[in-house]
């Protein structure tokens, strides 16, 4: 298990991390969310020793992470980059060996990934001769060539076409199924909702929400209620403190309600008002949880409710 414990980091007067704490479990895909500048990249750099935290530590399997532990991690930085003039096969082998594989094992692993990604015929090509999308694939293979136990991907989906996104999703899921812990940051919240089981939301250097997406949704006090009552103007709902009308056209209404709203009461009122066509009660979407969590001033997301 990866444990991020009370990380703090300042760059001059800029506070990048201000006591961030969370965990990422093996076999789980964790989406690491936060606005730009919230501290995602700094956290990832701290995991790889690329930034030295002023305070706090990173632990793996209960022990502080050091250079040798990191050899079992795979990293794909936000700023993509490999050696442009180095051959693809040799490049993968080089990074495999730098992670501790023998020359032969690294060659074989590199070839395996090239086949897997449909680039077996490009083994001898220089990286710069590949298309942008294929360079991205090689970048992913570089992070995976040594079969890491923890995969840290900084914005892995940015700049990918739908095909690339599909490959990335497939690989990430497959690795997690194999027991690998995956931590990735993204701004594409719908994608995160689709791919991840857990999320960690960071804002202003602090973790403002974390846990399984379903639990976070369940714990949220917001619900969506879509109602359609034919032949009414919606006045039947009246004015309630626990109901907020988001959209209203004729008999159709989109409502944002408190999760303790008396549904039976509303249902009865709707039926009384006219012919009920739709009555759907849903948890909030991840993007709403996100907006709520990162809103200023920092709310205490779960403890805020009594």
């Amino acid at each position, binding site marked *: 298990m990866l444990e991020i414990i009370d990380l703090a980091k300042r760059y001059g007067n800029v506070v990048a991390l201000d006591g961030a704490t969370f965990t990422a479990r093996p076999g789980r895909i964790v989406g690491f969310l936060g606005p730009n500048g919230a501290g995602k990249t700094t956290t990832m750099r701290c995991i790889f020793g690329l930034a030295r935290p002023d305070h706090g530590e990173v632990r793996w399997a209960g022990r502080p992470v050091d250079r040798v532990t990191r050899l079992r991690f795979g990293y794909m930085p936000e700023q993509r980059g490999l050696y442009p003039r*180095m051959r693809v096969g040799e490049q993968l082998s080089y990074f495999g060996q730098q992670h501790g594989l023998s020359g032969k094992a690294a060659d074989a692993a590199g070839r395996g990934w090239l086949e897997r990604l449909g680039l077996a015929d490009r083994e001898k090509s220089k990286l710069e001769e590949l298309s942008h999308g294929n360079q991205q694939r090689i970048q992913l293979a570089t992070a995976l060539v040594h079969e890491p136990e923890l995969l840290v991907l900084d914005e892995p989906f940015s700049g990918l076409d739908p095909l690339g996104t599909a490959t990335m999703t497939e690989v990430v899921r497959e690795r997690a199924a194999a027991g690998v812990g995956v931590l990735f940051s993204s701004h594409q919240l719908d994608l995160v909702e689709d791919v991840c089981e857990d999320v960690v939301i960071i804002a202003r250097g602090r973790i403002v929400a974390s846990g399984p997406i379903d639990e976070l949704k369940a714990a949220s006090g917001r619900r969506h209620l879509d109602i359609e009552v034919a032949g009414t103007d919606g006045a039947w709902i009246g004015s309630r403190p626990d109901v907020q009308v988001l959209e209203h056209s004729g008999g159709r209404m989109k409502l944002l309600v408190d999760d303790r709203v008396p549904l039976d009461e509303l249902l009865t009122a709707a039926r009384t008002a006219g012919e009920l066509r739709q009555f759907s009660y849903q948890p909030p979407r991840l993007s709403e949880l996100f907006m709520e969590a990162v809103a200023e001033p920092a709310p205490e997301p779960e403890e805020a409710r009594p």
Partner: protein
Amino acid sequence: MSRARSIWLVARREVFERGRSRGFIFSVLFTTVIIIASFIIPALIIGDQAATRIGVVEPAPDGIETAITATAELLDQEVEIVTYPDREAGATALADEQVEALVVVPGNLSNAGELLFREEADPTIQGIVSSAIAGLRVNAVLGEAGVDPTALAGAQAPPTVRAIEPPEEGAEAQFLIANITAVLILVGVFSFGFTVLTGVVEEKQSRVVEVVLSTVLPRDLLMGKVLGIGVLGLVQLGVFVIAGLIAASLTQEFQLPPTTSGAAVQLVLWFSLGYTLYSTALGVLGALASRMEEASNASTPVTMVAMASYFVAIFAVLSDPSGVVAVIATFVPFSAPMVVPMRAALGAITPVEIAVSVAITVATIWVLFVVGGRVYSGAALQTAGRMRLRDAWRSAGE
């Protein structure tokens, strides 16, 4: 995995990636050809000039060939005599450029005869042939008058020739080797030091440095890079030295002094030390920059120090290899790589001085690696603008 293996992998990548690049191979081959040519071409030109062919028309007076050859020898000229049965055959040969000049003198030396050239008279040949003929004629006249031939020969003996300040054996060659050594070290340190600088900046520009540093420690990356590129530098230096020595011994124009092998050892030693010292400094400065232009600006102080050291070596040390300046420069780590091998080539340094100088330089390199490694780790991920040395040092702080 050990750090040593990590450094080794970085170094090996540099050797393979750069060593098989067309640029490197072409530059080594091209320079080798130039080195060999610079020995062989002068030898060929000198060889062509060596023997001047002079034609002599029969019947010629006895002893004219010996007289011309002997006179030429006094003037440090080599001539080859070709005889022709008659004037017509000789003139044809002269016109066909088979000989440079044609001598037509009556066999009985009744007159001084003729000396024919193709287009214009060559004063050297003219001098040689004129004095040879004059000598023969004087001998003939005096012989007829009954002068003793032995006394005559004695009277014509040249004076004893002697230089009062003869140069030491091979001094000229030593001087040449000292100069070549300094140039090879300066050029090697510059070209391979700048390869390190460029390599560091390229890794930052292509952003690959973040992936690399997620497994390799910054100091190890710098060290591996310096080592790998240094191996290429040594290979190139070795090729140049061996090509030069072979070309020199083939042409035999250049007598290698006995200090040559010692000078070669010093050259390799001080190339290694000088390269490591300067390239580490350049690598650290490269890490502070994020673009090539910034890197070359940042490298200016190092370039100036290297150039200054070279000028100290060729002006102060070459003229007075045991003087105060030379001794001081021996113990300054940045000038030692050029000054020490030069003094060694001139045979003007003691083993103790060399040992102390090596120790000082190695210690300086070690300090550079420690300081540079930390600055490198503080600056390697900085991708906007040029970072200040102090900020990089602080940013990597504990």
